[in-house]
């Protein structure tokens, strides 16, 4: 199947120096380190740009500047989802990547939430149009968080068939799934014998003591040779830092020290991006004992899930998925 996929090289392009920028910039020689992305032969930056927050940036201009600066610094992984900000996240990214499509690993997610293959393929066409491209590097099933999602995904005419069809048609190179809720659900997805290439999950220094993806899913994903995308390194919206439990640097460094391909981080402003770039530029993996002591320090407030609200509450569950599963909306049931 893979031989029908268009062969293409990800070659680093010389970065144009943008003059007149008044935000402090480090040396142009900086570059975010890269790692192999699973078994697919691609090389991915250890920091990925989260698509949701791109839609939260104050305007199109800021979003464009974030993407340019990320590219300039060597970030080549761009995350998105069909449902983020009703398409605005994809549109902003599509515009910002014009002329640079070949330099990046582009991912978006399909948001069927239990609906059928046809709906999925319609969403794919829409995502491609918004992202101004004819193919994705990674296409993932979004938000596998409801207990019956695996049944629905693998039912006849379900979204799993759409993943295969899209791959066969050359519209996507790699397929996977994501979810922020429950390690058991991830394991059920991985036990179906489906040829997933990638998997995305929350990974942070609090996770280890509460419904842990790091302990339960990461080793299995590594064993299967999947490319692992970590997310929610600071709690989803910085809860862990706001609690005063860790610094952003500790949180991000911990997540990036795990055996993952990349860590996706939401950056809705140039300031946040610069903060992350500063951490990543000097990135040195934590030693196992440093990781252990960070986990131990976080444990007292980690064990009941109060800073991982995406696992312990419905706060991070999107409205589209709630609607498909007949749950109250985020207005009616905020947490």
């Amino acid at each position, binding site marked *: 199947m893979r031989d029908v996929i268009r062969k293409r090289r990800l070659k680093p392009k010389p970065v144009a120096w943008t003059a007149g920028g008044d935000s402090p910039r480090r040396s142009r020689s900086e570059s975010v380190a890269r790692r192999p992305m699973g078994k697919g032969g691609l090389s991915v930056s250890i920091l990925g740009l989260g698509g949701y927050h791109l839609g939260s940036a104050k305007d199109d201009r800021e979003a464009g500047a974030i993407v340019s600066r990320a590219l300039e610094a060597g970030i080549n992984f761009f995350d998105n989802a069909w449902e983020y900000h009703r398409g605005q996240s994809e549109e902003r990214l599509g515009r910002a990547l014009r002329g640079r499509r070949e330099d990046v690993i582009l991912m978006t997610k399909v948001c069927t939430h239990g609906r059928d293959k046809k709906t999925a393929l319609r969403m794919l066409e829409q995502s491609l149009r918004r992202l101004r491209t004819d193919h994705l590097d990674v296409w993932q099933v979004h938000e596998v968080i409801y*207990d019956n999602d695996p049944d629905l995904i693998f039912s006849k005419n379900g979204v799993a068939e759409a993943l295969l069809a899209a791959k066969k048609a050359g519209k996507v190179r790699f397929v996977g799934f994501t979810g922020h809720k429950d390690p058991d659900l991830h394991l059920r997805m991985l036990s179906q014998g489906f040829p997933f290439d990638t998997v995305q999950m929350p990974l942070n220094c609090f996770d280890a003591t*509460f*419904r842990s993806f790091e302990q339960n899913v990461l080793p299995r994903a590594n064993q299967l040779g999947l490319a692992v995308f970590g997310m929610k390194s600071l709690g989803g919206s910085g809860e862990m830092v706001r609690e005063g439990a860790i610094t952003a640097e500790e949180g991000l460094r911990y997540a990036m020290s795990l055996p993952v391909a990349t860590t996706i981080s939401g950056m809705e402003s140039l300031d946040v991006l610069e903060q992350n770039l500063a951490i990543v530029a000097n990135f040195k993996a934590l030693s196992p004992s440093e990781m252990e002591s960070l986990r131990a320090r976080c444990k*007292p407030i980690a064990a*009941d899930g*109060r800073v991982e*609200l995406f696992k312990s509450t419905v706060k991070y569950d999107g409205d589209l998925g709630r609607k498909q599963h007949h749950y109250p909306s985020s207005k009616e049931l*905020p*947490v």
Partner: protein
Amino acid sequence: MTSPGNIPTRPFGKHSGVRVSALGFGGHHLGDAADEETAIRLVRRAVEAGVTFFDNCWEYHRGKSEIWMGKGLKGRRSDVFLMTKACSHGREGALALRMLEESLRRLQTDHLDLWQIHGVSFDNDPELFMRKGGAAEALLAAKKSGKARFIGFTGHKNPKVHLAMLETGFPFDSVQMPLNAFDASYRSFADAVLPELNRQGIAVLGMKPINGHGDAVKDGILTAEESLRYAMSLPVTTTITGIESFSVLEQNLRVAQGFIPMEPDRMQALRDRLKPQAGDGRYELYKVSLKFDNPEARWAHGFPIDSQQGEVKEMLRETDNSGHPFPGR
């Protein structure tokens, strides 16, 4: 009209000399009754009809539920099996014992038949319960002093947390949990916890027979009678259901008086019928959402509380506990 049958009584777990009515009167909804007089009449009518099991909790309506039940049971205390719950939520045992004294005063009695730890729902609750100075010590002390005949715990969230509580080896006399026809297909207490309790002779107190707020009934998925009959047909000691009005009380009595259990194949058919709507938990949001965890618990565990929620407003107006979450910050 033919006279209705009696409400059956069942043994309280391995304490077979103690029997309670198969229908239990839920205390939370009593605080939602139109007024105090209605609440008192509801309790009296239930006692007359043969309900002997009365449920309550220190934090329900910040004491109103206990006070109204105490008034309703005046003169009938020895005819009933009275339960209430402590709301320490991981905090110290001394706090639980202060709550016990308050509950006894509100309920106008010198002892409880059953005292339970309320709302065990967070993953680290078993650890906090058993820690030195924790609520486990308070339960034992209350039993020793005769202020509580039996002790147990309750929670509506996660069968794994219930099992972790049982694994502590603490001598629980009873365990309360949601049991209904939807539970069978979603994070099932009936599958994971009920058989273990039956095996150990721990009294099982079913709750949420109509899914807590009756949404499935409102949506026409099943009837209230079907729902209650299913729950009462499981191997439980009693099924606690919320009663805030005479129409609800009479509806429940119609099922409970002269109760006929549902046949196993009809129970299976009902589970099968509900499976498509049950599989993602949409009708069991107490297993999913923080909303159904009392603010006292959320507060103690450092979770956000919703200032618009009625219970939070009640709590903030007249909070009379330490108010400090554990561990302190």
